[in-house]
């Protein structure tokens, strides 16, 4: 009766106190589980803690996550009086407030001396973290789930496979669900114990371009080089049997492997012979040979053999002996992964992927080349205009590009907003370099008409002066010209193909220039006059066209475009006084290769140089210097076959 009463009272109390507590108590509390493993938890050793963490994680209680988090954060405290675990919160240096895991209610404040903090070491925290993943994977907060997935991706582990699989079903976000499924496949490939499941997963991921897939497959094919006497051991998953002296597996390193495994006597190198001989000099002779005669390898060997016969030094291992030892052993590469089916499937899958990667790399290379070509086009178009119309090579063209870039920099100092400053910088750069170009035409080039070599040299003088002037004004260190935020980043098609937005913008800019140029040349009065002056200056002059004015405006236009090109180039390259000279030779090449007096020629030239450079770099990626060398040699040879460029004027119009 009394028991019944007490039970009734307890029930009543439970109902009265809080629904939460009631629920917790009905769903069982976590404190007992912790108490079950109290010893292990307090001992806090990485080796033994496993069952405790597993018990908490497997309890299926909602508090389990809190416990693990609090524990890992070193906020779990044990009350010395009864050994119960609580969440501790610091009130002041000596006092901590404790909260119960199950009820979530404060149980009061305690002096620090009455408590013991649990300080899991990093190993334990990692284990806790792994255990926590399953909770995080099902966390109601999508960011937490995303973070959990990311942590698995970074640090995959066999133990994460099960919780990951368990969480897929309930995932509400479709994107995240797909990501989870993908990760599950990858983990299956790497860690599943069932071979069939792994093979199925490999088959699923075959042909996927993701870097993660290759990162999963590649370790499966890791090999270890080994050697045994006789034939290959049973049960090893052999990747290849090696023959010493073939491929990059040379005889001496093969023999050294034998020596390392104590399967053969140590080889005596020339250096060894030398030091042994030095150690055995007896009265100006070694092994009967006079020291002075030891300056040939033959005599040294004779002396050494004599020493070896006398037993003073280890015997010399002859080439015959080395060959015999190599022949008696089998060298092989074995996969670390024991299952042959898995390695075969992985190798096949990788091969398929490589093929697709190759195709995509070609696409990527094409995009790169296109972007490089548009840069060269931008840099060269101004040069092509002045060269085509006036027959003038402007060696200071590169410095106009630099001037444009510095204009962009200065504008950005005044207008901090990047988008606005670029919008202002483009016309400003055009105006500045247009003015500089017009000034140069009026002051210098006009007086050197029909003397192209002199013009080349005079403009070179200007180039030296401008470059040094820029150095004097802006210093030698690079100045930043920052692209607006919306141009940051890249357009990523997949893990292989991507192109940065700046490069896309430059490509579009090049297209705009092409359009504007064509419009000016074909639809405006200036274009008409320019074409007239290009084709026959005397006739044009007699028709009332002022060639001086046309030359001046063309030169200004060419220089102005160089200025805009400078802003564009400054967005991705460093703005220094040498910016122009870095591009000038390529610009010349573009004009020369493309042919003079034709915008399409410049376009073709830029495309050819861009593609050529990228192509050579692709064939010899380690060495961009060599790539440039080969490109220039190619161009010199190209000129042999098309001395007037890709698109050339023919016949009498071409003149001499």
């Amino acid at each position, binding site marked *: 009766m009394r028991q019944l009463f007490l039970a009734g009272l307890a029930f009543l109390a439970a109902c009265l106190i809080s629904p939460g507590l009631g629920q917790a108590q009905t769903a069982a509390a976590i404190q007992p589980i912790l108490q079950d493993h109290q010893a292990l938890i307090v001992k806090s050793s990485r080796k033994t803690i496993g069952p405790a963490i597993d018990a908490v994680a497997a309890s299926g209680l909602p508090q389990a996550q809190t416990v693990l988090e609090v524990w890992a954060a070193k906020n779990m405290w044990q009350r010395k009086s009864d050994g119960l675990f609580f969440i501790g919160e610091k009130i002041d240096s000596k006092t901590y407030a404790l909260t119960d895991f199950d009820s979530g209610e404060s149980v009061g404040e305690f002096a620090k001396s009455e408590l013991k903090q649990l300080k899991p070491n990093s190993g334990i925290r990692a284990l806790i973290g792994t255990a926590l993943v399953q909770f995080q994977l099902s966390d109601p907060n999508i960011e937490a789930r995303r973070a959990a997935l990311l942590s698995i991706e970074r640090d995959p582990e066999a133990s994460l496979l099960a919780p990951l699989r368990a969480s897929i079903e309930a995932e509400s976000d479709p994107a995240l669900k797909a990501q989870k499924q993908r990760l599950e496949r990858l983990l299956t490939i790497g860690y599943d114990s069932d071979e069939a499941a792994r093979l199925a997963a490999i088959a699923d991921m075959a042909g996927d371009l993701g870097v993660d897939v290759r990162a999963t497959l590649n370790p499966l094919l890791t090999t270890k080089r080994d050697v045994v006497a006789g034939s290959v051991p049973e049960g090893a998953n052999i990747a290849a049997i090696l023959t010493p002296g073939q491929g990059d597996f040379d005889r001496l390193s093969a023999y050294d492997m034998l020596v390392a495994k104590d399967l053969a006597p140590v080889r005596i190198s020339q250096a060894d012979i030398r030091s042994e001989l030095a150690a055995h000099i007896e009265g100006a002779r070694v092994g009967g040979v006079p020291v002075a005669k030891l300056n040939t390898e033959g005599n040294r060997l004779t002396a050494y053999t004599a020493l070896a016969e006398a037993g003073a030094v280890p015997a010399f291992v002859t080439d015959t002996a080395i060959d015999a030892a190599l022949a008696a052993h089998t060298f092989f590469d074995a996969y670390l992964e024991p299952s042959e089916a898995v390695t075969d499937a992985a190798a096949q899958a990788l091969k398929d992927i490589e093929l697709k990667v190759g195709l995509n790399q070609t696409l990527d290379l094409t995009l790169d080349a296109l972007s490089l070509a548009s840069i060269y086009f931008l840099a060269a178009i101004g040069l092509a205009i002045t060269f085509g119309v006036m027959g003038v090579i402007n060696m200071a063209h590169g410095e106009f590009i630099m001037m444009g870039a510095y204009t962009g920099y200065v504008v950005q100092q005044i207008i901090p907003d990047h988008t606005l400053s670029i919008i202002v910088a483009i016309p400003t750069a055009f105006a500045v370099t247009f003015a500089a170009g017009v000034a140069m035409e009026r002051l210098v080039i006009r007086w050197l008409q029909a003397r192209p070599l002199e013009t080349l040299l005079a403009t070179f003088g200007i180039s030296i002066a401008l470059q040094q002037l820029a150095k004097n004004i802006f210093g030698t260190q690079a100045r930043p010209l920052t692209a607006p935020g919306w141009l940051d980043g890249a357009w990523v098609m997949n893990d292989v193909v991507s192109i940065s937005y700046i490069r896309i913008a430059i490509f579009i800019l090049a297209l705009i220039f092409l359009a504007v140029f064509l419009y000016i040349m074909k639809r405006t009065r200036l274009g008409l006059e320019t074409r007239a002056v290009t084709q026959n200056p005397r006739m044009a002059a007699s028709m009332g066209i002022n060639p001086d004015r046309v030359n001046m405006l063309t030169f200004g236009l060419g220089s102005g475009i160089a200025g805009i090109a400078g802003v564009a180039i400054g967005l991705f390259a460093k703005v220094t006084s040498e910016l122009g000279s870095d591009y000038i030779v390529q610009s010349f090449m573009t004009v020369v290769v493309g042919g003079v007096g034709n915008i399409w020629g410049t376009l073709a030239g830029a495309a050819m140089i861009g593609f050529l450079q990228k192509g050579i770099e692709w064939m010899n990626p380690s060495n961009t210097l060599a790539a440039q060398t080969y490109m220039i040699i190619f161009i010199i040879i190209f000129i042999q076959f098309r001395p007037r460029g890709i698109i050339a*004027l*023919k*016949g*009498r*119009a071409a003149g001499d």
Partner: protein
Amino acid sequence: MSTLLEVSGVSVTFDGFRAINNLSFQIGEAEMRAVIGPNGAGKTTFMDIVTGKTRPDEGRVIWGEKSISLLGMNEARIAQEGIGRKFQKPTVFEEQTVQENLLMALKKPRGWFAVLTYRPSDADLAKVDDLAAQIGLTDQLTRTSGELSHGQKQWLEIGMLLAQEPRLLLVDEPAAGMTPAEREHTTDILVEAAKTRAVVVVEHDMEFVRRLNCKVTVLHEGAVLAEGSLDHVTADQNVIDVYLER
């Protein structure tokens, strides 16, 4: 009279424009020939082809007794074969003296090593004096040729051609920009030259052509329109049409 130069079935196209269209032409040794025709008839291009400056698309250019083909030879090689060419504008080496110009043109080995070791002999100098007398520049020998008058330059150029001792002389509008007296002198030089070699004169000026008193070839649109004496061709209806059309 044996044929010195034979051009047959030659055509050349510039960017779709047919400058020479199936042209055939021949000239014998020691013959004077005038080539006339309206602008764009292909007179200069014809000379370009013979002298190797322009390669024809099709046709043959045969030279001399041995009937060698001039196609595929470069300009210098053709010049060494004995074809001299005078340009429309006077082209002499303006920075050098008349004597140096003529010495350079004298028929001597043209190879660089031979030239390097060459020192003019008395005979060479005498020859230069002769030539200078022929073209009326004896007093001008030590003058820089850039200082000469337009007509004198033209003569110097002709003198240089004669110094080359060519078997065929191609002369492009020699009388352009000359005074009547100068023209007369030029005619004399050419007529004298044609006694020992073939001379082809391209000319606009009918009076000048009449004075040369030789066979005339009329070119039109890159082909031969008529050939014969001046009176014969000027009576030709086709020629009249072409010149009147213009």
